């Protein structure tokens, strides 16, 4: 299909991509190094990308290391996800005035003027995470206008992973490592370092992507280019750091084991610090903050990220419905892997491994699942009660 033919752009010409995006008023955001991690921020040229760096990730551990090449995308995902742009951590919802006569006026904050951002370096798991959040914010009965505006204004350049992360399990979750054609994106690329010059095999994902790509100096991909690109993603798929076997059976497994002793065990380790929910690309919970100025005449309502791990997440006068750490860990994991299916028609987990890497005590969602499966209440012999 002509839509999906490979187009080769050399490393030397890569910055033409920035030029084409800037010409159209896009700010490019992508990976860069800050405070010892690869995070997402504004990148102005390929010089800002973490060329020649990779990440070593394990449960509760993240370190950067030098590669022996100059790959621009030779790492996986860091603590940030693209939700920091699509679903901002703080957002003003509306403002209100109270007049002397006691009347009140409420004013919308304009949500249609979202910045035009080009996301450079979106991994397959991240494209899946965006599609999942689309269902949350656009398909769950009410449309969030801020998310919709930001999503419409986002241009996505996907990257097929050339390296597998130590905590990655996208293969188990069927969310990668290769970007499938049906997954919404504008452009995708695979970085090729072998068999000739350092180059990128681009594919068009949308008309908008095609328009950009035609402005880059390029040549058609040869069969050898295609072969090398395919080998890269195949190699990545073979080196996943984690697995979640039999993922389709996990929802029923968890919902039938809500009183499993493993929840008590993990609760003893979990600090309810909320790192996992902050790092997770699909977690979406927010809270609202109502503020007023000193005169009491001007009020605002803000929305900010929240986490089901906090003690007051379920607070009503009288106490919290989920008081114990056990109940809160169980809520997060069963929501992500089980009840999400009933709500949104897919798993909430894309196998990116962030929750495993960024947990300060190294709790591993794949290990917890395996432990529950090992002691599955449904396969225990019936005991006299």
């Amino acid at each position: 299909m002509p839509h999906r033919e490979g187009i080769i752009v050399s490393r030397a010409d890569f910055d033409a991509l920035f030029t084409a995006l800037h010409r159209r008023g896009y700010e490019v955001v992508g990976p860069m190094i800050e405070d010892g991690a690869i995070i997402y921020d504004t990148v102005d040229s390929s010089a800002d990308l973490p060329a020649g760096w990779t990440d070593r990730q394990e449960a509760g551990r993240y370190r950067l290391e030098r590669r022996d090449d100059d790959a621009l995308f030779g790492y996986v995902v860091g603590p940030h996800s693209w939700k920091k742009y699509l679903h901002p951590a703080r957002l003003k919802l509306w403002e209100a005035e109270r007049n002397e006569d006691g009347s009140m006026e409420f004013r919308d904050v304009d949500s249609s003027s979202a910045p035009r951002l080009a996301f450079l370096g979106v991994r397959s798991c991240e494209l899946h995470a965006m599609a999942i959040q689309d269902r949350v914010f656009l398909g769950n009965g009410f449309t969030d206008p801020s998310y919709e505006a930001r999503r419409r204004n986002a241009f996505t350049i996907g990257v097929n992973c050339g390296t597998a992360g130590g905590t990655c399990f996208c293969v188990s979750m069927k969310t990668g490592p290769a970007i499938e054609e049906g997954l919404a994106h504008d452009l995708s690329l695979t970085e090729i370092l072998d068999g000739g010059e350092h180059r990128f095999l681009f594919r068009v994902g949308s008309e908008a992507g095609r328009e950009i790509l035609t402005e880059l100096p390029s040549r058609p991909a040869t069969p050898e280019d295609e072969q090398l690109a395919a080998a890269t993603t195949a190699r990545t798929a073979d080196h996943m750091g984690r697995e979640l076997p039999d993922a389709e059976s996990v929802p029923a497994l968890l919902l039938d084991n809500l009183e499993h002793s493993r929840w008590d065990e993990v609760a003893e380790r979990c600090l309810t610090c909320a790192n996992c929910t902050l790092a997770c690309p699909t977690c979406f919970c927010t809270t609202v903050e109502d503020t007023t100025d000193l005169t009491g005449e001007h009020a605002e309502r803000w929305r900010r990220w929240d986490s089901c791990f906090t003690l007051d997440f379920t607070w009503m006068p009288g106490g919290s419905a989920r008081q114990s750490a056990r109940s809160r860990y169980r809520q997060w994991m069963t929501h992500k892997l089980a009840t999400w299916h009933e709500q949104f028609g897919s798993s909430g987990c894309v196998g990116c491994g962030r929750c495993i890497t960024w947990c300060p005590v190294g709790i591993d969602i794949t290990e917890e699942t395996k432990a529950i499966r090992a002691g599955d209440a449904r396969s225990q012999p019936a005991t006299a009660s």
Partner: protein
Amino acid sequence: MTTTLEPILRKHPFFDGLTDADYALITGCAKNVRFRKGETLAREGDSADQFFLIREGRVSLDFPAPHGGRVRIQTLDAGEVAGYSWLMPPFVWQFDVVAVTDVRALEMNGGCLRGKCDEDPRLGYTLMQRFSQLMADRLAGTRLQLLDLYGAREESGYSAHE
């Protein structure tokens, strides 16, 4: 010739489903009684020689309140039973039983009935089962009342916001 109370006994839900022999045995322990509104059927501390099968009206189980006056912790209507202290030592009423409205009831003589149960342990076991159930139900209800379910929830004091 005195009219037997057996048909009335048979109709009361608490004694439903006994054998003909059982009814014959226990009818002799029953007495038809009436109370006017406000009258006391039994007083706390009195010797519990009887219990009441309410036929019509409402009675209340009253306790002295902590700071004076009386507290009503349970009302019983037609078809229900007041009194289980006749069953076990020290055979003493644990609360006042007061007629909230005019009341018609069957008063069952405790001593008489205990005697019949000694004679016929099978009947004794049946009555024990029924009274155990009654006490368990009362206890369950009282526990729910103790939980103060409808009380305004205390503010926990932990909240940055509501």
